[in-house]
């Protein structure tokens, strides 16, 4: 038995998560969340800064993501790229991601190296080397990332264009990675000012999940982070989404694509809204697995599509319910009609009890497997603290989904997924 490799469950008898969480705030405002579990000798570390692309001005476009790169370029006691090498030489993994709402830096370490991970995060929080040389280097790297992920990939540009079509607010409409023009035109002064504003203890949440001693970990956190000036982040401004004025549509030609595609998006409430569980069930009924309604209709029955997906984006502000279909040439009208018909059916007849149970069971299984990783658990706690203001809401996730009724799903479809409220982006195959 590979006992060391199998992480603990944190699940109650009913199969729902039951994670013991302690939360405290340092005098400088750093939000600290501890979720100890000694069954496996690893620790997931998540440091979430409450800054994403939504917080950028036009001249700062792409900065939150740029800092995802700059944060590995060195600090007072850590040389360029040494954040990676210190952790890797001790068997740890490190990475980061940026969204419209937040930036999350994370490490997964063997338990004896937790102290190192905390020291490294603290050193770059207090003394990041925001230098002209590092900026130039990372501008090049981000431009290369842009080419790889957007310019040279099928549907890459669609991922940039859909939010522009779906949101009235620039905060959510512009791409996280920014634009070449803005990135190349930026200055070190602008970048430094952005960093000084947002990357401060009072704007961050630090989560530890896994095998650590509470007192010892708190001692390290206080020693390394405690004397960093609190700073005063501007705070995230609520995003106002104008009510959809009607269907919005656009078409783009993609020379990288070999099949046409449709990207459909409806504006829905934020992740923390009470309607979200019903919308998640609806997304699963429509788009999950081979028994999902859209897969059965578009791929199996009508045979007009190759791939179909339905999902919520997961934004803290006004969210998007997206349906993506990669379809056969010439089948766009048929796909649109079929999607509209399937949504009509849900609005008219709701979903079946079996479909509701299936969605709930799928969510329960996914959550159980997700929480088997200390790193994913740390990330989820950080995200739930950000979305709901309380990391323990993660323990309520399955209860929320189980409370959803057939009537709730039907009501959500009726209220939010109206045919005349959709943003529709069609991708045509280019030469």
């Amino acid at each position: 038995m590979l006992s060391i490799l199998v992480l603990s469950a944190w699940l109650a008898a009913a199969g729902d998560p039951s994670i013991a969480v302690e939360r405290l705030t340092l005098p400088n405002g750093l939000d600290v969340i501890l979720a100890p579990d000694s069954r496996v000798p690893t620790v997931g570390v998540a440091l979430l800064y409450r800054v994403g692309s939504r917080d950028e001005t036009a001249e700062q476009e792409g900065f939150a993501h740029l800092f995802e790169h700059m944060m590995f370029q060195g600090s007072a006691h850590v040389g360029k790229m040494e954040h990676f090498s210190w952790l890797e030489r001790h068997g740890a993994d490190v990475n980061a991601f940026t969204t419209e709402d937040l930036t999350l830096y994370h490490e997964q370490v063997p338990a004896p190296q937790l102290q190192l991970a905390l020291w490294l995060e603290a050193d770059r929080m207090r003394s990041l080397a925001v230098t002209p040389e590092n900026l130039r280097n990372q501008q090049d790297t981000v431009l290369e990332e842009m080419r790889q992920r957007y310019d040279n990939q099928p549907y890459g540009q669609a991922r940039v264009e859909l939010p522009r079509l779906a949101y009235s607010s620039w905060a959510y409409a512009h791409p996280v990675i920014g634009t070449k023009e803005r990135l190349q035109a930026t200055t070190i002064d602008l970048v430094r000012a952005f960093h000084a504003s947002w990357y401060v203890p009072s704007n961050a949440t630090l989560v530890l999940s896994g095998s650590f001693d509470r007192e010892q970990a708190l001692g390290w956190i206080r020693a390394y982070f405690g004397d960093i000036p609190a700073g005063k982040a501007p705070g995230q401004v609520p995003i106002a989404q104008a009510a959809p004025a009607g269907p919005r549509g656009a078409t783009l030609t993609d020379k990288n694509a070999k099949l046409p595609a449709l990207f459909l998006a409806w504006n829905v409430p934020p992740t923390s809204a009470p309607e979200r569980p019903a919308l998640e069930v609806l997304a699963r009924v429509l788009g999950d697995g081979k028994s999902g309604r859209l897969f059965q209709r578009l791929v199996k029955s009508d045979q007009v599509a190759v791939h179909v997906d339905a999902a919520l984006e997961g934004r803290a502000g006004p969210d998007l319910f997206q349906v993506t279909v990669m379809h056969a040439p010439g089948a766009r009208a048929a796909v649109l009609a079929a999607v509209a018909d399937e949504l009509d059916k849900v609005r008219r007849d709701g979903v079946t009890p079996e479909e509701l149970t299936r969605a709930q069971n799928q969510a329960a299984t996914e959550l159980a497997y997700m929480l088997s990783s200390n790193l994913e658990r740390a990330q989820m706690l950080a995200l739930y603290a950000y979305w709901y203001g309380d990391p323990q809401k993660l323990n309520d996730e399955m209860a929320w989904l189980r409370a959803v009724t057939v009537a709730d799903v039907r009501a959500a479809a009726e209220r939010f997924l109206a045919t005349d409220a959709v943003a529709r982006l069609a991708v045509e195959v280019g030469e």
Partner: protein
Amino acid sequence: MKKLLILAAALALVACGAAAQATFPEVPPTSDDVVAPRFAVPSVDRTLPNGVRLVLLEEHSLPTFDFAFYVAGGDAADPAGRRGLGTLVAKLATEGTARRTSVQLASAVEGLGASLSASSDAEWFGFHGRSLASASGELLGLFAEVLSGASFPADELAKAVDREKQALKARRAQPMYLGLRALYETVFAGCPQGTFDLDEAFLDTVTRDEVVAHYARAVQNVPPGGALFVALGDFDAAALAARVETLLGRLPHEGGLGLTVRCTPSTTPQVLLVDRPGSAQSAIVVGRPVGGFSDARRVELDLADEVLGGGPSRRLFVRLREELGLTYGAYSNVQRYQASGLWSAALSTRTEKTGEALSELLAVARGLAEKGIGADELAVAESYSVGSFVLHNAAPGQVLSLLAEALRNGEAPDFWTRYIQRLGAVTPAEVVQVARELAPFDEATTVVIVGDAKAVRPQLDFLPADRIREVTP
């Protein structure tokens, strides 16, 4: 030498760290302690009279159930000229049974919150399932139904063929897919490992009769290479063994499969330029054959690969991204089969820098043998490989996959324990020796570039012109 710890001691050793300090320390606080994986003995490990081996591992800390059933053969069991048959059979195996239509089967599996799928790789056909432990009995029942009664409806075959043709088109839009496909099909030409994906010619001619016959011959039958059922999760091993024995003990073991697993990969140097006019970047993939799963020098080569391209602080990434700004990322890895393997490295770069990036990539790879490796650099690679082994193999599916991989390649359940021990004992000289023993890089490496051939070709003047071949995707 670093001290290896077992799980029970791990927490105590955490306590050796520093207490709260008044001033910020200038030196990183590290520990030399390494958490080593500990592998326990399976609760059940026995082979049925028909050659099916059962290996069951109880783990009660998660309410989950993961299983896999492998039959030796996979793509190697494809009849001559019918490359892709096993892959298509795998895609169709869960599209209906004698009792249920495709949608009824999908609803039954997904209604449990479970998953059940099949796959075919170069050497094995496999089923994979997972669910919450509370649904494990029903999931096993559905697996039994599929194994004994997959019905391969004619309409599902027709739909799958159309769907796969369209999906192939979509996959061919991905530059890195094209690069890897060309690499595998070139290095493993004529071998089952070269079956990277389906192709249109096969899809145009496949019949239901051959699908049904292949399933009976290569999946519902235990070949001389054997079959393996592995499971891990919250179950009673004795009860599960009894049930699985009833299910799998009935499979015939008539053999007769003409497997071609032991196939010699190509070491002829080649440069394939896959034309993608107007491409914003070039995808570059290089690769060369190496030893198989149980190769005597495997650990040394794995460490050499780690030093070259195992992560952001390794040679390829540092040189090509951080020093030269040529790419978003450059990595390498080793894919291993029973009798052979493939080392490969890959990156994407802007079109006008293709030649420079390829030249640098090859220089970094050659540098391991030519310039050697420092003790510190190897120590980093060793520490990372040992330490991250725990991190990367924490989830139930990962654990199951790891164990099954060792067993499928004829190794004992303690293979990874010995592997980890060896990882910590390799010297720099041994790694360099392996790098030098491999044929010189320029004489055994296949290079694939997917990009705008017209713009890229003039940048390849440092390569022998007669090795370069332009192809269309």
